[in-house]
């Protein structure tokens, strides 16, 4: 079922086939004309934010597009479209906001893309439980705004909040920036309503309700078993108060020791993020620049503070310079730890005091509140500004892996070493829990030509994933699998692929749901 991603010149898409036009007619009857085979639409839905797709876009190429895009507005329309696709044996790919970083929505076998963004209603809000039931196509930012009016929040606040949907979070098992306190999306789900590949409506609820279908079977399934149409999510109260702290440590090990000690002390920070020396430098450039503060505009701050230094580094990191730059970075020592506590004011104050005590005992130097406050101000800006790196002929990507604490340093060192020949690499330790954390590596690289950039990008990923696996890390913490990490997924699951095939055969016997993904 799986095959490599085919690419085409973006300006010369093949014309729609008679079969596609017939499909358009059938689908249009179901969704009252909300369907398209126009080349511009097909091009727009051919890729997500997988950086390799961005590299291709810079060279005028696109992943092979779907034949048809459909915008359903109801569960029943999704069900009818699924039955149509199953009857005709046409692939069906659910699509949220297209902000995925792994090519999960690339229609490898063509077919129909099902854009769910018109299914964006808040169906029910129970402030006593507190829970919300919403449709999968709602953008995170809109959902949070509606919940905020009632003093509630999902607690799931990814940096992509403004350009990602609830369905996308669920399908990829995403994480918000405050997952250390509130959990990942899988921790927030009370139930899911899914139209599976047979066109059946499955309500997968957490216990103690009856039924064998649990949400965990569909969470992370990336559209391969069905279309997640609705979710019932647990909510939390909007925090009454926040405390911001930053501490500097003399190296990654010292910082990690402090981070672990904070969690063992019973503290529950909303954000506990340790930047390695390279990322600490980048972060410092972002908030210490005088020009940044004078302008005062969030967008300008981010451009001046983070993206411009990255662009400069990208060009400097070209070709063989990457390795030297990384070795030079070895001389850097200082690691910055950001902490944000939130909740009721009495508890926030107590937690911040205790955190300060723990960090001081671990050798941390107090850097005040401003770095963490700056993080809060900029936390949703990042995804919108990265294309400038690609405009500069370079690439930027992130690999987020996860491991237990005893492996964290080895994972960090191995992946960093593996990536060093190809790009400048920094890392932050995030989503910390009692047993371990995520390591989010940032790569900024460049090469002479677009072909060389692509080759370098592929070599980097192969090396990075192999190193992560060798050090005992998972290959993904919250970005999913898609096409970018399919081989890593297969390798990690091993014999367990039979389970994936069994689920596929159970829920999608015709094999129409996002075929070619997740090894099934």
């Amino acid at each position, binding site marked *: 079922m799986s095959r490599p991603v085919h690419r085409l010149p973006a300006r010369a898409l093949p014309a729609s086939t008679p079969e596609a036009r017939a499909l358009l007619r059938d689908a249009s009857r179901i969704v009252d004309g909300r369907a398209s085979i126009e080349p511009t639409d097909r091009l727009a839905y051919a890729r997500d934010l997988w950086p390799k797709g961005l590299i291709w876009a810079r060279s005028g190429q696109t992943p092979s597009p779907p034949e048809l895009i459909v915008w359903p507005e109801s569960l029943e329309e999704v069900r009818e479209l699924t039955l149509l696709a199953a009857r005709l044996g046409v692939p069906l790919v659910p699509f949220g906001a297209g902000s995925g970083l792994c090519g999960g929505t690339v229609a490898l076998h063509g077919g129909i893309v099902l854009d769910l963004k018109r299914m964006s209603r808040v169906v029910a809000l129970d402030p006593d*439980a507190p829970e919300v039931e919403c449709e999968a196509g709602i953008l995170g930012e809109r959902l949070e705004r509606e919940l905020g009016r009632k003093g509630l929040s999902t607690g799931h606040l990814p940096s992509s909040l403004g350009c990602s949907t609830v369905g996308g979070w669920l399908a990829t098992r995403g994480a918000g920036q405050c997952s250390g*306190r509130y959990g990942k999306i899988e921790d927030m789900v009370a139930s899911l309503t899914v139209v599976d590949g047979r066109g059946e409506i499955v309500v997968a609820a957490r216990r103690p309700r009856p039924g064998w279908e649990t949400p*965990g079977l569909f969470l*992370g399934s990336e559209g391969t078993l069905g279309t997640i149409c609705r979710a019932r999510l*647990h909510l939390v109260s909007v925090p009454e108060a926040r405390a911001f702290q930053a501490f500097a440590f003399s190296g990654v090990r010292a910082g990690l020791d402090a981070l672990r000690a904070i969690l063992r002390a019973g503290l529950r920070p909303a954000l506990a993020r340790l930047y390695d020396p390279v990322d600490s430098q980048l972060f410092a450039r972002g908030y210490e620049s005088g020009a940044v503060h004078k302008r005062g505009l969030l967008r300008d701050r981010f451009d001046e503070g983070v993206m411009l230094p990255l662009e400069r580094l990208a060009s400097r990191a070209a070709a063989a310079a990457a390795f030297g730059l990384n070795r030079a970075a070895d001389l850097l020592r200082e690691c910055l730890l950001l902490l944000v506590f939130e909740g009721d004011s*009495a508890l926030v104050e107590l937690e911040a005091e205790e955190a300060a005590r723990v960090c001081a005992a671990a050798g941390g130097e107090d850097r005040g509140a401003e770095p963490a406050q700056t993080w809060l101000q900029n936390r949703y800006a990042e995804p919108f500004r990265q294309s400038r790196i690609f405009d500069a002929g370079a690439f930027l990507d992130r690999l987020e892996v996860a491991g237990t604490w*005893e492996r964290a340093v080895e994972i960090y060192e191995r992946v960093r070493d593996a990536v060093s020949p190809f790009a400048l690499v920094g890392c932050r330790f995030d989503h910390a829990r009692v047993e371990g954390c995520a390591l989010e590596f940032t790569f900024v690289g460049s090469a002479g030509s677009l072909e060389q950039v692509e080759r370098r990008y592929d070599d980097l990923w192969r090396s990075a994933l192999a190193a992560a696996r060798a050090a005992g890390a*998972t290959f993904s913490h919250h970005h999913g699998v898609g096409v970018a990490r399919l081989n890593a997924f297969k390798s990690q699951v*091993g014999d367990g692929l*039979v389970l994936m095939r069994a689920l596929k055969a159970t829920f999608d016997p015709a094999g129409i749901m996002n075929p070619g993904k997740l090894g099934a």
Partner: protein
Amino acid sequence: MAVAAHDLTQLEERVRKAAGVPTRTGDGVVELLPGSLREVARAQAVKGMLGQDAERVVVSLVAFDRIEAPDPAACTIRVGAGANLGEVEATLQGWALTLGWLSPKARSLTVRDWLEGRHAGLRAVPGNRLESAALSLGVALRSGGLFVTPAAPRSSGGPMLETLFLGRGGQAGTLVEAQLRALPRPELEETFHALVERPEDVVLLLRGVAASDVRPVEVHTRRKGRGFAVAITVATYAFRARRDRALVEGLLKGRGEPRAVGQVGGGAPEFEGELGWDRLAGAIGSAGPLGIYRIARESVVVAARAPVKGAVALDSPPEPLPAPLLGILDGAGQEVA
């Protein structure tokens, strides 16, 4: 049906060669005695090939009751699926760790029964979420292969395939070993007492405590006069103990009358079940002394002398996996064989 000794000897010889693991016979069956996850998978695959003779072959997991020393950095512990939870907890206590606050019956289970039974190895964690205590599972699949889930705090690598084993009664495969998450044991536990008028007040009180970021670990209620006596035990840390105490006492005053109410717990429970919050008031009102454990926003575990209406008994069989799904796993097993 009696089995001739020489038949059994022949069968033993056959399966020992095929599986490559030690064997022994007794009670009319041949026991395969694997010592590793891979050997369990191989032994199961061999058993799967035997047809009718499979009834006379048992894959013994007697070797899998070990408890390793906890990892102090990650607060995890590796255990065989046959290890007793009480012993695991005792080991963890030596490191100031705990599995979490389990219900009385759960404490006597093996790791396998806890993870594969209706408990599904779930525990309540700060924030009152339910979370699996299993960081990683080692499973011998029904298809004959091995499945080891990654030992990482969280992942986004496809569907949560571990949910085909947790709470599934071993239908898709046999749990052989696990790496369990532990929690740092809080420094203090404190019990508060009150008398409230209605069962609904107990529920609101408990919800209020949980929503205040306090960790309730155990609650006991029983009818007393026209109202209900309540004892709530919370776990906390020295740095926040005063705040937590003030909060709980404030909530108790708001819902009832804080005062000593004598013994509230009702002895060893006969019944344990999982109950949704919407049915908890009814259970408090109609049951006798009730223990409430594993208090999470999704549900609670109730313990009582008799079955509690609306509660799913935790020793009842798990929901069956659909036959076609199991058939696919069996088919894959035959391919392997």
